[in-house]
């Protein structure tokens, strides 16, 4: 076993393969946050006056708010004045084509395995790439444009589609929703915008890759997806960050709007740098994601595979306002070493005959803590609401924790709500059985964990499922000996 141990150690030390930094020249704001910084950001982005006003209003609200402390996570207080709120890779001029992208930046994306090259159509995924704070490239735009689909960075959308942004920004996550949403509203620097017109089924997966690169940078992206009547879109989000000793802040806001008979499928593979095995460094991930099923028979489905970040605070939610609307949440959250995750969802049933489904699989290893926190709320007039929740925890090792905090609030007697949860560990007999068939322990753990998480993995688009499976295995390497 001694040999085995050293191999495992090697794997642990090499496990975060995205931990490189790129030597990109960046155009940065000075450290700290005040109204001038917000004006600086807005100015850099050549935003209209109303956008600046909106940001300032959010900022003034934020000043009055307190850092939330109810989540089951512990971390040193964040010094919000010690963060750079705007950092853009320097590009000499507006790009006419992707060929003009800084070759260093291009290599960054190649290392990440993201194809920015429109020639490589094999993958069939349209990508918007956000590095540090700024969207640097969006692929397949023209082709999507022919269908009337808008897929661009939110900065461009503010200038080119102000009527849509004005109408929808902050409509699902109000600027005063919570501390981090308010902060994001004040300082968001970029993100993606998708608009799917009436009756259009988006023919390819839309994807955004986020990467934090510059030091001491916060990333505050904002994503807005609007699906008009009868439309469909599947959207993927991936994230990586370099390995750094200090903690970096990520506070995103995602808003989804689904009209009558529209469907939005939003998948995330979150792989921010989790810190080293002593718990040093890593990303603080405080994200507000919410979708509204505004129309009848609309559907929003969140799928997330959370393997990264030192601290995760994230509850992708659905407001089921339209009658017969459907909300889904499928989640796998893996924590190892000193990682902490407090994640879950809210399903707010407002319309009639609404349905929701929650499948959450938490896997804890090392000395990590993994919490599921969820709310199922059935309002007084939401007749015939249905919810089914399944929250399972798998423990690897006796120094980690698994926690479940489901809140269920029902004010209508026609509701039917069911919640089930289990906690278990990987059985030694299961591992031995695999060993006896010639499978080593590491592989056995990966097989068992993937089996445990299968129901969620099946929800991911193919391109992501493979990556997500590998990530699970990498995250847990060395956790069972």
């Amino acid at each position, binding site marked *: *076993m001694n040999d*085995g141990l050293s191999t495992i150690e090697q794997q642990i030390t090499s496990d975060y393969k995205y931990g490189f930094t790129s030597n990109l020249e960046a155009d940065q704001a000075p450290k700290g946050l005040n109204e001038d910084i917000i004006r600086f950001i807005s100015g850099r982005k050549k935003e209209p006056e109303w956008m600046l006003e909106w940001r300032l209003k959010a900022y003034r609200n934020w000043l009055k708010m307190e850092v939330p402390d109810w989540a089951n996570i512990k971390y040193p207080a964040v010094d919000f004045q010690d963060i750079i709120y705007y950092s853009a890779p320097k590009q000499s001029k507006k790009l006419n084509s992707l060929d003009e992208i800084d070759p260093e930046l291009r290599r960054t994306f190649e290392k990440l395995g993201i194809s920015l090259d429109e020639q490589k159509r094999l993958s069939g995924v349209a990508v918007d790439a956000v590095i540090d704070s700024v969207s640097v490239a969006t692929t397949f735009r023209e082709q999507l444009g022919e269908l009337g689909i808008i897929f661009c960075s939110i900065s461009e959308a503010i200038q080119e589609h102000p009527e849509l942004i004005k109408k929808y920004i902050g409509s699902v996550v109000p600027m005063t929703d919570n501390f981090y949403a308010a902060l994001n509203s004040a300082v968001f620097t970029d993100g993606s915008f998708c608009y799917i017109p009436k009756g259009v089924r988006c023919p390819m997966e839309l994807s955004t890759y986020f990467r934090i690169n510059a030091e001491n940078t916060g990333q505050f992206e904002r994503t807005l997806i609007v699906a008009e009547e009868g439309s469909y879109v599947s959207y993927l989000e991936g994230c990586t960050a370099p390995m750094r000793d200090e903690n970096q802040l990520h506070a995103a806001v995602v808003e989804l709007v689904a009209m009558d008979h529209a469907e939005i499928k939003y998948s995330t593979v979150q792989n921010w740098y989790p810190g080293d095995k002593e718990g040093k460094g890593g990303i603080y991930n405080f994200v507000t994601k919410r979708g509204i099923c505004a129309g009848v028979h609309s559907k929003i489905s969140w799928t997330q595979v959370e393997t990264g970040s030192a601290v995760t605070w994230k509850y992708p939610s659905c407001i089921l306002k339209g009658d017969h609307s459907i909300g889904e949440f499928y989640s796998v959250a893996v924590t190892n070493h000193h990682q902490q995750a407090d994640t879950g969802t809210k399903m707010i049933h407002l319309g009639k005959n609404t349905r929701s489904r929650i499948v959450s699989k938490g896997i804890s290893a090392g000395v990590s803590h993994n919490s599921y926190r969820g709310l199922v709320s059935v309002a007084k007039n939401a007749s015939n609401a249905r919810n089914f929740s399944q929250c399972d925890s798998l423990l690897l090792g006796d120094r980690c924790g698994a926690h479940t905090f489901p809140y269920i609030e029902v004010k209508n007697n026609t509701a039917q709500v069911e919640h089930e949860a289990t906690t278990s560990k990987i*059985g*030694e*007999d*299961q591992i*031995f*059985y*695999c*060993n*006896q*068939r*010639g*499978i*080593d*322990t590491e*592989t056995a753990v990966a*097989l*068992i964990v*993937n*089996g*445990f*998480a*299968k*129901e969620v993995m099946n929800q991911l688009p193919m391109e992501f499922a493979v990556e997500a499976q590998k990530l699970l295995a990498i995250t847990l390497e060395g956790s069972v000996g």
Partner: protein
Amino acid sequence: MLQIKDLQAGIEGKEILKGINLTIQPGEVHAIMGPNGSGKSTLASVLAGRSDYEVTGGSVEFLGKDLLDLSPEARAGEGLFLAFQYPVEIPGLSTINFMKTAVNEVRKYRGQEALDAAEFLKLMKEKMNLVNIDKNLLTRSLNEGFSGGEKKRNEVFQMAMLEPRLAILDETDSGLDIDAIRIAAAGVNAVRSKENATLVITHYQRLLDYIVPDFVHVLYNGRIVKSGGKELALELEETGYSFLKNEMNIA
């Protein structure tokens, strides 16, 4: 191929095997019989390398190697297969996926190239026919919700897939009706050859009607107290194990 010398082992400080001696040659079928608690399943577990059991003395040589020095997966790689008395369930993991991983891990151990999807499927089809197992069973989560017979048939299928040199069947007949025993035994017989050997552990003689042994050993109180040909099994069936007590007392 297998030489067990004075093997002593126990669990949590309790001695169960008190000096086992057994030699198995390629092509042979051995049966180990004995009453409950005599140490039959302990022997199977120790040979497969279950870490709960502690070996306190003796040696086991398998194909020229010190078996006790190998990890469970290396033993599998060397060609030792244990059909579990209680096959384990793994929710969400299909038997196909499980077997694909196992076959390729074992091939890697043996220095062979991994099978690609097409080759694997071909091999699987061939073995499925051999042991007469339904494909639907293999696409379901490993052993989850399987009937007793289905679990045992799955064990035999896995044995066929991994092509072991020595297969140990730990009470493969327990809890099965005669039809299920016949099907499982037919599978075992289908993969028998001159190069490989089988060790059948059972409480009852009836399995040995279908898997005919060359040698029968009686395990009692941690020792092999009697060895003979297949007729010994029949004798035991008629007289039961009670004679052991008398014989042991005399001895």
